């Protein structure tokens, strides 16, 4: 079983549009949306949810005000500034926990002399296994302002592997997150290959360098595609030269094409929308990646 991960460093370079196109062109793959902060593949692939489940991760402390003695031990121990003082209508001082600042270490609960603090598991989101017109899609939604998106990414990848195994499918296409932090690392580790989608801008070039270093750090072979390459042909050449110099492969170029947005508005992938322009470029890119994955 092979796992192709598509990431970008910089956001908005066209990662999801390319991942969705690959899902359609592959036909028989499992697709996993690991950009759990801003999951968008479902908007194009129109999934029918078959299976779903809650995602819990970490803990959250809560003080039972009626049992709080107001000693303040919790506030002194908390390293995250999550415990605040409050005053009741009767003037009594008690403490309360800011759920957005609490990291769930449980220290306050352990040392509260009144045992007035409960520690419960935190609900962070939901995962789904769905059917689409191009095979199964594993996706998730992370609750607003939640933590641990890296753990949810790992869960989505695990489910995708199970689905692939059960269905005898040979390829998993993973749409990763932007950036270089925990969701990206969780998307990347142990993958067969990574396709980095960038754009010919100073930001694109800068972010490519950082995300490529992450791929190297985790020893995943990397291919690079410059999207909207004709916005700055000189910069495209420079990026491709850097890519080769750093021992990565150039996978192809996709031109700037307003049909990409038109396809998205029509809830289709660019390769279903047109065989010309960017639609043709993405097909060529897929053929090249297919060749790389079979070698």
């Amino acid at each position: 079983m092979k796992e192709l991960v598509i990431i970008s460093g910089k956001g908005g370079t066209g990662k999801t549009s390319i991942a969705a196109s690959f899902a359609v062109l592959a036909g028989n793959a499992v697709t996993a949306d690991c950009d759990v902060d801003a999951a968008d593949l479902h908007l194009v692939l129109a999934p029918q949810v078959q299976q779903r489940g809650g995602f819990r991760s970490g803990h959250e402390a809560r003080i039972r005000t009626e049992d709080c003695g107001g000693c303040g031990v919790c506030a002194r121990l908390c390293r995250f500034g999550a415990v605040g003082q409050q005053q009741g209508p009767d003037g009594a001082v008690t403490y309360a926990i800011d759920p957005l600042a609490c990291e769930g270490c449980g220290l306050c609960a352990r040392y509260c002399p009144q045992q007035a603090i409960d520690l419960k598991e935190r609900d962070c989101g939901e995962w789904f296994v769905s059917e689409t017109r191009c095979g199964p899609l594993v996706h998730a939604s992370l609750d607003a302002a939640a933590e641990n998106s890296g753990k949810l990414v790992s869960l989505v990848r695990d489910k995708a592997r199970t689905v692939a195994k059960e269905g005898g499918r040979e390829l998993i296409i993973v749409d990763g997150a932007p950036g270089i932090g925990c969701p990206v690392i969780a998307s990347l580790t142990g993958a067969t290959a990574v396709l980095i989608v960038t754009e010919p801008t100073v930001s694109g070039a800068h972010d490519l360098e950082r995300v490529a270093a992450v791929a190297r750090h985790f020893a995943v072979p990397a291919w690079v595609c410059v999207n909207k390459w004709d916005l700055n042909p000189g910069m495209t050449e420079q990026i491709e030269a850097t890519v080769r110099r750093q021992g990565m492969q150039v996978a192809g170029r996709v031109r700037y094409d307003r049909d990409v947005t038109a396809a998205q508005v029509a809830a289709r992938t660019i390769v279903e929308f047109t065989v010309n322009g960017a639609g043709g470029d993405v097909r060529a890119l897929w053929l090249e990646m297919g060749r790389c994955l079979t070698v």
Partner: protein
Amino acid sequence: MRIAIASGKGGTGKTTLATNLAVVAAELGRQVAYVDCDVEEPNGHLFLHPTIARHAPVQVVTPQVLEDVCDGCGQCARVCLFSALVWLGQKPLVFPELCHGCAACVLACPKHAIVERPREVGVVETGSSGAVGFAQGRLTIGEAKSPPVVRAVRSAAPRVDWQIIDAPPGTSCPVVAAVRHCDLVILVTEPTPFGLHDLRLAVATMRRLGVPIAVVINRADVGDDRVDRYCAEEAIPVLLRIPDDRRVAEAYSRGELMVTAVPGMRAALRGLWERIEEQVANGTVAGGSQHANV
């Protein structure tokens, strides 16, 4: 005042807006700093070319087990809820990247065999670009957790009247660290299905944090009108619409500021700045009828 520029979706133009807005505010005589909290991929420096006056490492603490003092009771591993200390038969093994630095293990150890050591996870740089103050953070490659670096940038940022915070994309903990306690969060979006979907998520996040919000629509003429309708329904003010313009994209690709490269943008952003000052002066955002076009 702290104005954060954020978005659910990446690549909608946060950095473009934040850098150009900082320049325009300075031109209008405001004391302003640009604060790059997108520490995984900080890009503002590519447009502002700041002079960096100070570099400071960002450190977090992680436990170190003093092997000659540890008697192998295993209490530290039992109290660690992050699995950053794992019990391996006789001795604990520390996984620094999982550690949140809560000190539970330090306090739990009956032998006082655990000490905290600093570990560098990034760097904060401060300086200036002309009249604009500058601060940025950079997460070390391979590190997973960016919020400590985000918090470090915010505390090292120049103390001026107006801080413009360039937030990371998404809706999870790094964004929360960047926008908490801001006086206004401007969500940059584009009128596409992805843009709208991610805007909804960002709005839910900001409402949960209780920060006032407004929207700027970038590439305003490329998709459909669903973002406009959504903002009207939710009574979220749209402060500016920036039309799709290949000249903006090309100037951006070369690292040029939009206000100098494209005629008309300076006046548009000055108008935006005035509307931002109005929004902040009015306190929480209520109405949804303010509209403006470039």
